[in-house]
Each structure stands twice: as structure tokens, then as C-alpha cells.
């Protein structure tokens, strides 16, 4: 591991200032929350930020008070601090009851040990798990100029939104948050800003080096999830290559507002298949105002993958994703 300086921040402002100070001094910075993935990246000499390379300075966020809370605002908005652990999210009764997809997504992440230290912000902003990136290849995500998966081993890579990089976004929380309409609270050298799910994540064709809008001294300090409308139910279905401790081959976060057996509106966001949480509006539209039957669910699944463009070795993800969507929609409609 390369030598680094640790700076403990006691407030968000101080964290931003420390990061900015280091950046201006020409030193690369990484924010540390749970640190479970950051430590591994550092041990493997993998850049925690493509442009910045390996960190010279770690700004430790764990000492910042108040960022580890899950609160319900007056209007029913769920305010989740960036330092909330995945275990805390899994164990929160309100989240489980009203924002079910989020609890279910958190539950599928890694292992209990990692969920005990891993944070919401860290999970949402984690670097890709593409085997080229993680093995030290000089790809876009490491600050290089190409994607090795394109003509190589792309079994686990994107079937939507790829090019020039074909990574898949590794977060399980992200699809659930986007499906639930979450807004991302970002603190930076400018004033704090709130970014919608659609704007927070960045496609490679917009910027191949990064996965989200966070700039060098930006901290994801929390996520706000609006109060669900009456009749809302949600679910997250993740398919993995083993029963635990790996990322999604394909996943679906589905939110449906039900009125009896009629779906008023739906949002469907896919994980593990695109460089960002991948929303499928055509599939969502099929559900609006309809009774959810097995046949409709099948059509929704088919619509969800209509735009898929698989690579040489990941065509299996297309039928897999179709079935995941179909089953999740059907199961959710049947859920009391």
C-alpha cells in the first residue's frame, strides 16, 4: 500500500475544506467512510478516482456527527445519512415497511461483516467491480483510454448503455433508490446541492472516467427518499453467481402504486446490466392503469429488455433480466 496521510474531519464543511486544500496542493484525495472497499483498492494500487490515481490523503468521514441517522421528515420523506451502515438500513422497521425495495437491496449486499461497516454513500459511490479494472488494467475507470472488456471477457458486463466503457454499476442500493425517486444530497466547495437519481449517475458516453457527478471535493452526505404514495409497494430481486457475497448478474428494483389489483404507476430500474442504474420507461408505461396479469408481466419483462445490446459473451443476461423483471412485477402485484 502506498503511504498516505489520514485527516479526520469533524464536520462536512471541514471534510470538504480538507479535500479542497489537498487538491489545491496537488495531492489526490479519497473520502473514507466504512473503508471496506477503499482499503482493498489501496492495497491493490487501484485508483479510487480515475483522474486522481491512488490517494495521498484520506479524509475520514466517520467522526462527523449526525450523518449516521435515518430520519423521517415531516412530509414523510426518508432522510438517510451517508454514513448509515447497510446493516442499519436492513434493520430499520420504517425502511422495511414503507421502502421495502431499499431494505431488500441492502440485505443482498456482500456479507454481514461488510454490511456492518459499509455505508449507504460508499455503496452508492463504489467503484466498478469489472475484473479488468480490479486487476489493474489501465482502463477508462483507472484513468486510461480504453475498455478491455469490449473485445475480451465480457460475461459480466453491460447490455444497456455501454460504450466506450462497458462496466456495470455495482451498487444494489442505487437501483432501489432511483426506483423510489431518491434525491442525492451532495456537499462541495460550492453550496450543498440536491441531485436527482437521473442526474446523479453518469453514463460512460458522458464521462468514461467516472460513475457519478461527484467532483474531487464533493461528499455524498445523504439520500432523501420521498414519501411513497398510498398503495405503494416495492421489491428488489437480485440474481448472483452464488448465494451471497458477490454483485448482481442482473437485478430489478420495482416500485408499483397499486389501487386494488390495478397498477396506477410503476417504476422499474435494473441493476448489474448497465453502467448506471438503468430505468426502463417503456416497461413502466405498460403497467400504468392496468391489471397485472401473468401475460402483462411477461410483456413488461420483454419491454424491459427491448433495448438490450449484449456483447459477445453476455447474451444470457437478456433472457435473465427479462425473467427477473417479469417475476418481480408479478410477485409484487400478488404481495398483500
Amino acid at each position: 500500500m502506498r503511504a498516505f496521510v489520514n485527516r479526520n474531519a469533524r464536520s462536512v464543511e471541514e471534510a470538504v475544506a480538507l479535500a479542497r486544500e489537498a487538491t489545491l496542493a496537488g495531492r489526490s484525495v479519497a473520502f473514507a467512510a466504512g473503508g471496506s472497499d477503499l482499503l482493498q483498492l489501496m492495497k491493490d494500487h487501484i485508483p479510487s478516482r480515475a483522474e486522481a490515481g491512488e490517494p495521498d490523503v484520506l479524509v475520514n468521514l466517520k467522526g462527523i456527527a449526525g450523518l449516521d441517522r435515518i430520519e423521517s421528515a415531516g412530509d414523510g420523506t426518508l432522510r438517510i445519512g451517508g454514513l448509515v451502515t447497510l446493516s442499519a438500513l436492513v434493520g430499520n422497521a420504517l425502511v422495511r415497511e414503507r421502502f421495502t425495495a431499499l431494505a431488500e437491496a441492502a440485505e443482498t449486499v456482500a456479507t454481514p461483516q461488510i454490511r456492518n461497516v459499509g455505508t449507504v454513500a460508499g455503496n452508492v459511490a463504489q467503484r466498478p467491480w469489472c475484473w479488468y479494472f480490479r486487476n489493474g488494467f489501465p482502463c477508462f475507470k483507472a484513468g486510461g483510454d480504453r475498455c478491455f472488456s469490449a473485445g475480451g471477457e465480457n460475461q459480466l458486463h453491460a447490455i444497456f448503455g455501454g460504450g466506450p466503457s462497458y462496466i456495470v454499476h455495482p451498487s444494489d442500493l442505487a437501483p432501489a433508490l432511483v426506483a423510489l425517486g431518491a434525491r442525492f444530497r451532495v456537499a462541495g466547495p460550492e453550496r450543498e446541492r440536491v441531485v436527482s437519481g437521473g442526474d446523479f449517475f453518469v453514463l460512460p458516453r458522458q464521462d468514461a472516467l467516472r460513475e457519478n457527478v461527484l467532483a474531487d471535493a464533493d461528499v455524498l452526505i445523504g439520500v432523501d427518499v420521498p414519501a411513497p404514495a398510498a398503495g405503494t409497494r416495492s421489491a428488489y430481486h437480485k440474481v448472483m453467481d452464488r448465494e451471497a457475497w458477490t454483485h448482481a448478474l442482473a437485478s430489478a428494483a420495482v416500485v408499483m402504486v397499486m389501487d386494488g389489483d390495478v397498477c396506477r404507476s410503476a417504476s422499474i430500474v435494473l441493476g448489474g446490466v448497465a453502467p448506471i442504474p438503468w430505468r426502463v420507461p417503456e416497461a413502466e408505461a405498460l403497467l400504468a392503469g392496468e391489471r397485472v396479469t401473468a401475460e402483462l408481466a411477461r410483456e413488461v419483462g420483454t419491454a424491459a429488455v427491448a433495448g438490450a445490446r449484449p456483447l459477445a459473451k453476455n447474451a444470457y443476461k437478456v433472457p435473465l433480466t427479462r425473467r427477473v423483471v417479469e417475476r418481480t412485477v408479478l410477485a409484487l402485484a400478488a404481495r398483500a
Partner: protein
Amino acid sequence: MSPRQSPPQIAPLNTVGHNVPRIDALERVTGRATYTRDVRLPGMLYARVLTSPHPHARILSIDVSQARALPGVRAIITHETHEVVYGSGSIAGGVQYSDAAKDITLHRRYMFDNPVRNVGEPVAAVAAVDRHVAEEAIRLITVEYEELPFVLDVEEALAPGAPQIWPEGNLALNGRNEARPSGGRQGDPEAGFAAAARVFEGRYTTAFAQDAQLEPRSALAHWEGDKLILHTPTQGISNCRHDNAKDLGLEDHQVQVICHYMGGGFGDKNGSYYFDLIAATLSKEAGAPVLVELSRKEDWLGTHGRWSTVQDLRVGVAADGTVTAIELRALSGMGPYLRRSGGLSGIDAYACPNVDRTIYPVHTNRAVAGNFRAPSEPQGYFPIQSMMDDIAYAVGQDPVDFALRNMRRPTEQVRFTNYSMEECIRTGAELFDWGSRWRSTPAADAGPVKRGAGFSFMMFRSGVGPSSAILRVDGEGLYTLYVGVTDIGPGAKTTMALIAAEELGVPLGRVEVVWGDSDRCPYSVGESGSRTTIMTGYAVVEAARDLKRQIAERGMPAGDGVLIASATPNPSTEGKQRLCFGAHFVEMEVDVELGHVRITKYVAVHESGRILNPLPARDQIRGAVLQGIGMALHEDLLYDARNGQPLTAGYYGARHITHLDAPQIEVAFIETDDGYGPFGAKTVGEAGIILSPSAVANAIYNATGLRMHDLPITRSRLLEALA
């Protein structure tokens, strides 16, 4: 299928045969057990190894000046500074522990090779005052490489014009330096095929699977004058001592190998390894103890795993379903150095007299292949048992009936010390309720979740052989047993104490075991080949008998007196084959829409002679079955064909199964005593992994109607086959 007969009863014993926790369980679970990386010596240094980033490259120059200038660096070694033969590593012709083969081999391996022939091979090593300095120094070494053409695929490696990894070509040399395949002919294969009503053909492939033991390798070396003291996790202190002594130009007595506790081996820690030599060399250079530690990734790429295979099978069958001929043409991927034969087992489980086997051990620029729990078996059984399963359906027979018709049985020419393959199959079929779980028509279920069942059966070596033990009793009636065993997991230390207590007729608590130190313990065969219980255990029996004779003649020692007995038996089975037997039955659900496989029932029946300690014996079978399931469904080491880089080293990349993936495994032992080994004990540790890949693949076929020819049967492969 007729009902099974009840197994022969064996007489129960006092200490042996009962569930006994490990005698060192408390040390292990309280963290008091000392593993190699826990040993601290005054003034010790820490070493890191620089490895090759290229699959095949000539080293033109190595510049260590910047590294040497780093404060805290004590020694740097490379192929330029030290030419040390890594003799046991070459294991000429795949023959382990053969000095003669090592002396003549043309494919000599060194501590540092030039050219380097796979990614992860050692290039240089640094000893420094702490780990950070050592790691920093490694990154300051500049190596100029001339990249050479490389080859990853076994078939391409044998094709004309392939990059040559050795001047003699890419077909591995045997123990006589001959580039020849192994195998051979039995009976009259041509006549067998001519007599066949139908001939079946198929191609099967199996993947590299790393041994993946929890403890990555390490070695701590220090010198007392001309004597090397080496703490290293090894599956055999005696062989490790001899190998290291030979490579370093020392006499055996000049090397002391110590391994008390280790975090698993599965074959990855047979004998010595190059980092033992690196630790010894750095320690000599620096004049201080040196600890070499490999990271998980370095261990994954720098040690070895099970050899991958490409296998073409042809089987002839008569109209009544009798197998008349078997032909196997196989390529085994050995990486650039031959650590083991590359052989394949499985066909011997059939009685068919006409067999033609040709197995090519092939060099590639992938990771080295070597021993992994039953080295030749699971990847050998998977093809033949898959094909026989196919044939059973094709000739309209229940696969169990087909097996009972065609499996090997004792003959006048080939005699066994005992035989229980049929017993294993019949017992398993009954325990599993094969008749109701197996579907006579594959893919019989209508919905997306389809159930099916599969089975496989085997026989495996349980040979006897030489080993030694020393036993002492003192005036207080305490017994001390000296055995050169280590404990890679099955509990050898406990087993040796149990055997001694049983034979002596004393409580287990009266026996203390001295183990894991080549200076204090006599020769033992090593914890490979499932031999320790049988061979060293039998030496313990003989030593105990000797001690009992002495006590009978001279009485128990009094005061400061002691009696000492020893034994170095070299028993034989008088020309009979000594084998263990087994049959595994699997039921599973396959969700054909999601490609999800869930094992719903697993029954493993084994005849491994008398079971000396049922507790660890059952766990050995279960652990081995799980490894086999991982091999069947998950593990691989993918390379990028364009640049020869490995992509899936480590537990994450290779998708090793987790506890949540592990099904319940029912283990049943058929106990026998054939009169050999300690109280009739046979092989346990390796036996359990042999059948799970083939049984799982056969169950997938029964559930889905898909014959999966390639391991691992990943979700993506299943979904592609279903598409």
C-alpha cells in the same frame, strides 16, 4: 434393483470409532495455536516477492539500485544474484520426491526463472525491516522484459507453429525426458468397438480450480551456522526437509522444518515451494530471520491448482447394455512446469476389458497445475460418468442398474483386499430413495422449476506403505508419541493419539503427541495422498505393540526410567489392490428461467474401512463434497486471450461457494476391516471430492434434459444452453 444386503459387522473398539473432538481444539479456537505467520523471532525481517506481469517474457535486466537505496532494505535477490534449482518444483515427469528424475530433467525450474513463463512467477525478492518497506522496495525495482509469444490453450499449444515454452516443445517430458503421452492399452479396443451395437462419442472440458486453502503460503527461515531452520506450512515436513536440503546443497540433517499448525492445504502445500528457498536465501544474505508472505493473489497465481482438461471419449456398448470398449484422448493443462502427472482416473471404475487411453500433459503459459485433493479424479470421473449416464438413458436402463451391470468387480486376475462398490451404490440408492427421486424421462416437470436426480460411483486408492513412529512411556505412566505429521485439517495429530491409545489400551489423555518438527519426529509420509492415517497410523500400531511387549517383559518403568519403542513398518497387500469405494446421489431443482441450481438432497455413501473418528471423517466428506460442487458449478481461472492476463484469481473472481450455497450433506459410512492399515482404516480425506461434479452434472441432465459437457456449469452456461 434387488434390495441391498446388510453390511458385514466389525467389532467395536474402545477409543477408536467414537466421536472425539480434536485434542488441540482449544488451542485452535482460542487463538493460541501458532501458525507460521504468528512466529516472531528477534531481529526478523519481512520479505515481499516481485512477480512477473507477463505470461512469457525474457528478463533483459533488473535494476535494483533504487530499492537498495531505500532505508530499511536488508537484502535483494534475483536470478542474477542466485541460481538456485527449485528441484522439487520441477518434479520431473510429474513424479514427486524422485531424486533420480530431478537429477536428469531437462525442464529444470529455478527459484527465479528466466524466461518467466506465467503471470505471477517470482522475479525478485526483498527483505526489509518491515512489511511496508519491503513492499515499497519491490515497487522500486525496474525490470526490462522482452515479451515472448505465449499460449494459453492446450490444443493450440500442441499445434504446429505454437509458441515454444520449452526448447523440446510443449508436450511435457516424463521422468525419462521423453515427450510422450501417458495412458496405454488394455485388452483389444478395436475388437471391443467392432463388437459394439452402438458407439457413443463426446467431448468434455474441465477448468482449473485453485486449491484455495484459507492460509496463503508463507515461510520463515533462519540459520544457525550451516543449519537452516524453516517454519513453513507444509503437507509433509519430511519431504519438505529433503526437497529444500537438496535444492540448497545441504544434507537432510542440516534442515529443520517446523509446521505445527497450518490453515489448510488440499495439495497446495505438498513438499517444498520456491518461497521456502527465497526465505532461506534472503535469510542467509541478510544474516537475520526472514519471513516471506504471499498475498492471496500471489498464492493463487504462484502456487497451483487442479489441471484443466479437454477430453474426447468414445464408448462402445453391446445391445444388452454391456460396455465393450472405452477410448479416451485427453489433454491436461499443466502450466509451464510439471508438478504432477496430469493423469486422469475414472475409467477403472468400469469392468470393460478393452480400454485405450492417451493423455497428453501440455505446457501452457497459464498458472501451474498440481495436486489438489484427489489430483486425477474429479475431472477424470466427470466425463466418463456423464457419458455412461447418457448411455444408460440411450439403452433404456436406469443409470443405477447400468452401473451395477458395468462396474468393476474383483476377478481372478485383479484381486482387492475387500470390495464394496456395489454395497455403496445399493445403500446410497436406498437412503436417497433413488427410485422415487430419479425421473425416467429427463426434464419431466412442466413448470420452470424442474427437479431431477443424478448419481455417480467410484473407487480410489487406499494403499499401505512405509512410515515411522516412536513411542515412549515414563515412570508416571505418561506416553509420548513422536510422529512426523502435520495437521492440514483432518486431525492427524488427534488420529495418531487415538491409534496409540487404542493399541496401548490406555485413556486418550495419557498420550501426548510430538509432531510437526523434523528434528524431533521420525519420518512420516506427509499429508498427501490420504496416506497419513493408513501409513503413519500403522507405524503407531507397530510401535505400540513393541512397547507393550517391552512392558510385558520388563514391567512399567519406575522413577526416572523410560521405555522407548519404535517402528518403521513397510507392509504390503500381497498383490491385492486396496481401495476405498463410494457412491453419491444428488437431487436438485433447476429454475430454467433464471438458470438457478439448488441442491435439495445429497447423500454420500463411503466405504473407507474402519472409521477411526466419525466426527472429522464426516466433515472431511462434507467439505470435499462442497469443493466438488464448487468445481462443478463455479470455479474457473479466466484469462484474457489477447494478453495472457488472469482475471478471476481469488475467492470473489473464482466464485467459490459460500455457506449459503452449501446444501445439507448426508454422509453414511459402510465400515469394514480388511486386515490392513490401522484397525482397517482407509482413505477418507480425498475420497469425498471425486464424485460431486459428475453426480451434479447427471442430476442437471435428469432435471433439465441438458447434458452439460463443460465445467464449471455456471449460470451463464446453463442459460446459454437453455436459450
